[in-house]
């Protein structure tokens, strides 16, 4: 099918050239605005199968949304030549080493001119090495560990907010609440990303007047965290924070109920924003906060592409679903938008020109502001804080983009 598209556009562009030539001969060449160039090939290693296939499927939806839209527009406009886009996916089975091999294959065999990132910090980190080695720009929206961006890479750009701000927004919000919470228990998984989130919290909390009364880390993927929750309970914290993943966020919340740990505020870095979290915990999921890259309620004024409302509607239509797009979808689409805008700004398909345009990019999209710092990560977009209220996600912070107020303090387990 892809081959067919290529041939078809080939014929089209030939026809366009002929038409132009005839027009020129006729002497009437008035408004020959855009022509169609060769298809642009973008390589995407992705977790189609394996342990992260759920998140990988969401990221792929985000890419496919942009793909459909850009090709409906006739393609990416490079100095009045429109290039239709092909996304070449390779299934990395959620494994970092395989992802890196496939990235190289995409570049050498599939002739990918640019790359979009895979799902997850570990795979992104290993693919970044390959992108850099081949001087192929890679724009990613699903790897937030700062370790990816501390290697001095020049060709790797991340549109999402880095790990260190995942939970600091929650602390900013907590400082405005009444009665103001004072003590924090911090649990964290031992992987790179989660440790960055936790380290930022322990450094930031004192500056907002919070005292860390308990902090510990556990092996990534733990399902039995009751012991740690019992330890946290013994310190009687006002705020319970977890920096980990969906599985651990569920385990900690279940243990908190088992052991009657009554915190005024519970916030988990990853997990509560997914529909699975609410399904798994039912009404116990209420009152839980999380830091999110994006929510369907945010209010940004985009310079191009869709508005937030149109994006949500378009998602539901394209994938025939009642679910809202979650942030994995949105950040993936945002990665495509950054790449598109940079190519248009560069007016060139040369990797080094596009790389320079990415480094200089500053644009607001439905996802928020996209602008990269000197390391290549987007430190300009704020994280938003979500809360589950009556089984639904609501955006509660910052108040400029929120759709409702935070419900605080959380009632004790015996009163809910």
């Amino acid at each position, binding site marked *: 099918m892809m081959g067919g598209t290529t041939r078809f556009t080939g014929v089209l562009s030939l026809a366009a050239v002929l038409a132009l030539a005839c027009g020129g001969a006729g002497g009437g060449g008035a408004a020959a605005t855009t022509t169609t160039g060769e298809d642009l090939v973008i390589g995407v290693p992705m977790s189609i199968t394996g342990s992260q296939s759920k998140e990988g499927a969401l990221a792929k939806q985000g890419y496919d949304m942009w793909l459909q839209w850009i090709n409906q527009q006739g393609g990416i406009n490079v100095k009045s030549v429109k290039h239709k886009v092909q996304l070449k996916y390779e299934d990395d089975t959620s494994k970092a080493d395989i992802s890196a091999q496939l990235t190289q294959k995409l570049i050498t065999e599939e002739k990918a001119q640019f790359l979009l990132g895979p799902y997850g910090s570990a795979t992104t980190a290993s693919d970044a090495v390959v992108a850099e080695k081949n001087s192929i720009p890679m724009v990613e929206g699903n790897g937030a560990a700062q370790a990816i961006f501390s290697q001095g890479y020049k060709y790797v750009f991340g549109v999402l907010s880095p790990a260190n701000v995942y939970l600091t927004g929650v602390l900013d919000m907590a400082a405005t609440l009444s009665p103001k919470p004072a003590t924090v228990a911090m649990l964290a998984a031992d992987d790179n990303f989660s440790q960055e989130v936790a380290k930022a919290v322990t450094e930031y909390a004192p500056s907002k007047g919070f005292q860390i009364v308990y902090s*510990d880390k556990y*092996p990534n993927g733990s399902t*039995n965290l009751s*012991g740690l929750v019992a330890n946290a309970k013994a310190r009687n914290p006002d705020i319970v924070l977890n920096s980990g993943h969906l599985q651990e966020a569920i385990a900690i919340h*279940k243990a908190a109920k*088992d052991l009657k740990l009554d915190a005024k505020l519970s916030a988990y870095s990853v997990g509560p924003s997914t529909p699975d979290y609410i399904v798994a915990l039912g009404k116990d999921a209420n009152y839980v906060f999380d830091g999110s890259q994006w929510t369907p309620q945010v209010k940004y004024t985009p310079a191009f592409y869709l508005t937030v409302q149109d994006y949500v509607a378009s998602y539901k239509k394209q994938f025939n679903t009642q679910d809202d797009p979650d942030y994995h979808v949105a950040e993936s689409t945002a990665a495509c938008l950054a790449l598109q805008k940079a190519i248009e700004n560069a007016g060139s398909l040369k990797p080094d020109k596009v790389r320079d345009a990415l480094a200089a990019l500053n644009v607001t999209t439905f996802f928020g502001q996209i602008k990269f710092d000197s390391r290549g990560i987007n430190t300009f977009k704020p994280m938003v804080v979500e809360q589950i209220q009556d089984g639904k996600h609501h955006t509660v912070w910052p108040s400029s983009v929120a759709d409702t107020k935070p419900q605080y303090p959380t009632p004790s387990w015996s009163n809910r």
Partner: protein
Amino acid sequence: MQLFLQQVVLGLLIGGVYVAVAIGFSLVWGILNIVNLAHGALVIVGAYLTWLLFARARLDPFLALPIVAVALFAFGYALQRALINRVIRAPLFFTLLLTFGVNLVIVNALLVIFKSDFRSVTPGYSGSGFGIAGVQVPYIRLAALGVAVVVAVAVGWLLNRTRTGAAIQAVGADRDAARLVGIDLRHVYALTFAVAAACAGVAGGLISTIQAITPTAGEPYTLQAFVVVVLGGLGRVGATVVGGLVFGMVETLGQTMVPGLGAGWANAIAFAILVLVLVVRPQGLMGRIA
């Protein structure tokens, strides 16, 4: 002191889950001499069946356990009869390879059917419990420990008090002699594996009520079952019960009560104890010297 007691209680309760998981694993290893790497996958099949019955038929997870046990019994019997019997006399390496393959097939079949969404069985009484002197005891975990003990007693009774159990033990002791006295080896192999699969299914049902499950969630349980069996000693149900409870206790206390260490050391502590047992008491805490 209160915190210490709380941690001991939590250790015993999670130990109950480890007992439930390890009983079937121990049976297959002890009798068939197969280290079943697909055991964790069978556990998760049981967990998904429990979830299906809960989500679709609103059946209480504890009432679903007998149904899950029967289903896994049938599945285990067929699996052994059709597949694993073929390598039963082959070197250990082949059985490892085959059960590893079975594990991959089951996990990926679950991924295709259920996707990698997180599922959890959350009945109305989830999270409720009672407290004694500030020590919280959640009902679900207590019931899980109770079920594990019942399963252990039932398997012990089956092995030691019935003709079928005598046949299973005879096969475990000496295959050729068992055949000489007229025991149908292929049937007894399949029966043993079926009982183990049923136990795995029950363990999975318990797990679905206390953690979120995904198709890949079973793999750590295979490893834990291995450690529990080595710790307790191979071949006796009582030894597995002791091994599971000790492992649960060591893991929880190691995670939380050792000053200077954190939960990150839990695995290191558990495996250090495993190595220690292998060096000092290679037959396990409760094992007999062969």
